[in-house]
């Protein structure tokens, strides 16, 4: 037996596997002081390792860990909920913008400088070329918004009809007053109410705003010259 084989047996012994035939090993150990020293040291190591015990955690360690884990899970759940809410809001906004652009828009009203909306000077333009008043603008915008659901429903209903053969489909009445109108009336009722509310609210503040604008214009003649 040489030193390398002797070291292999040493590792086996430290692995916990007993050496089957010790006589060649013992013979080698008698003649090799290095290997004899290694085996003696291994015996001391085994003696020391038998005294080792796994260090015990402090008494309240488990409770502290469980508390920390539960707190961490609560925090992560809250963060996740906030993230989802933010993502849902962003998605809704994107959808609204996309609908706005895909369903078409009315001709945008030409916005003139605000001094022309509230003509106070003697040189205000003629009535027929004047831009719409704020009440008219609010009413116009509300009508556009109220018309959106109707248009979406009509387009959604048209898609499956286009994708099926004509002979499969029964002849349906056109999307009009008899079928979709009651549902649309319901869907747009709240929007119409909102529009009326906005108009009434504007009527209430319209004349004070006009007076205030007139006073402001008179007090700043330099602006009128410009």
């Amino acid at each position, binding site marked *: 037996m040489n030193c390398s084989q002797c070291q292999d047996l040493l590792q086996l012994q430290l692995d916990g596997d007993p050496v089957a035939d010790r006589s060649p090993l013992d013979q080698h150990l008698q003649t090799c002081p290095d290997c004899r020293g290694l085996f003696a*040291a291994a015996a*001391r190591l085994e003696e020391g390792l038998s005294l*080792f015990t796994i*260090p015990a955690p402090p008494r309240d*360690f488990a409770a502290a860990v469980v508390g*920390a*884990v539960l707190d*961490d*899970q609560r925090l992560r759940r809250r963060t996740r909920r906030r993230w989802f809410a933010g993502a849902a809001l962003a998605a809704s906004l994107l959808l609204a913008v996309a609908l706005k652009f895909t369903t078409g828009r009315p001709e945008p009203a030409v916005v003139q400088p605000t001094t022309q909306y509230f003509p106070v000077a003697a040189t205000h333009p003629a009535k027929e070329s004047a831009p719409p008043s704020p009440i008219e603008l609010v009413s116009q915008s509300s009508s556009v918004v109220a018309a959106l659901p109707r248009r979406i429903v009509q387009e959604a209903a048209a898609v499956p009809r286009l994708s099926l053969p004509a002979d499969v489909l029964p002849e349906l009445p056109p999307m009009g007053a008899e079928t979709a109108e009651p549902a649309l009336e319901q869907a747009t009722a709240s929007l119409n109410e909102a529009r009326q509310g906005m108009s009434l609210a504007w009527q209430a503040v319209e004349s004070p705003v006009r007076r205030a604008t007139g006073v402001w214009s008179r007090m700043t003649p330099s602006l009128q010259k410009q």
Partner: protein
Amino acid sequence: VTDVSAEDVALVQRCLRGEAEAIRLLVDRFQAEVYGLCVRLLSHRHDAEDVAQEVFLRIFRSLRRWDPSRPLKPWIMGITVNRCRTWLSQRGRRPELADYLQDTAASPPADDSAELLHEIQLALDELRPEYRSVFVLFHEHGQPYEDIAVALRRPVGTIKTWLHRARLEVLDRLRRRGMVAGLPQAPESLDGRGER
């Protein structure tokens, strides 16, 4: 490799459902192993307490990634070893000497056992982190080669090589420090390292 226990799988599933009782059970079951390994690898009880808590937070955060076809304990020990190595690299210094005497048996013998334990601990502290991990997992925690290989994500052959080298370094230290009867204390270390 150790067989996967159906009990482990059920326990993990309950933890994933957020059951506080299951979380307590899992912590109770592994706290001694995790904390003990941290103490031995970091050689510092306070650090070990902090790191062991971090380990459990990490375990519960990544419990969904545990593969139920593999045993749970090596997975947990692997996370523990990784956290200890990260901690040691951040600490940027050698492990401090643990209060090793408290880790010995309840009735310490009157011979040189305390000194022997001290020398073994010093020898462990001098080992490379991966050698130390393998040595502690095998000799103190009784983990088989296959489970250590799973924990450290290394082939079994590599684990054996690391353990054999770790043993030889520890034995060399014991001989140099005169802890072996009948052998004179070596005046100088074989690899040129200074004596403590």
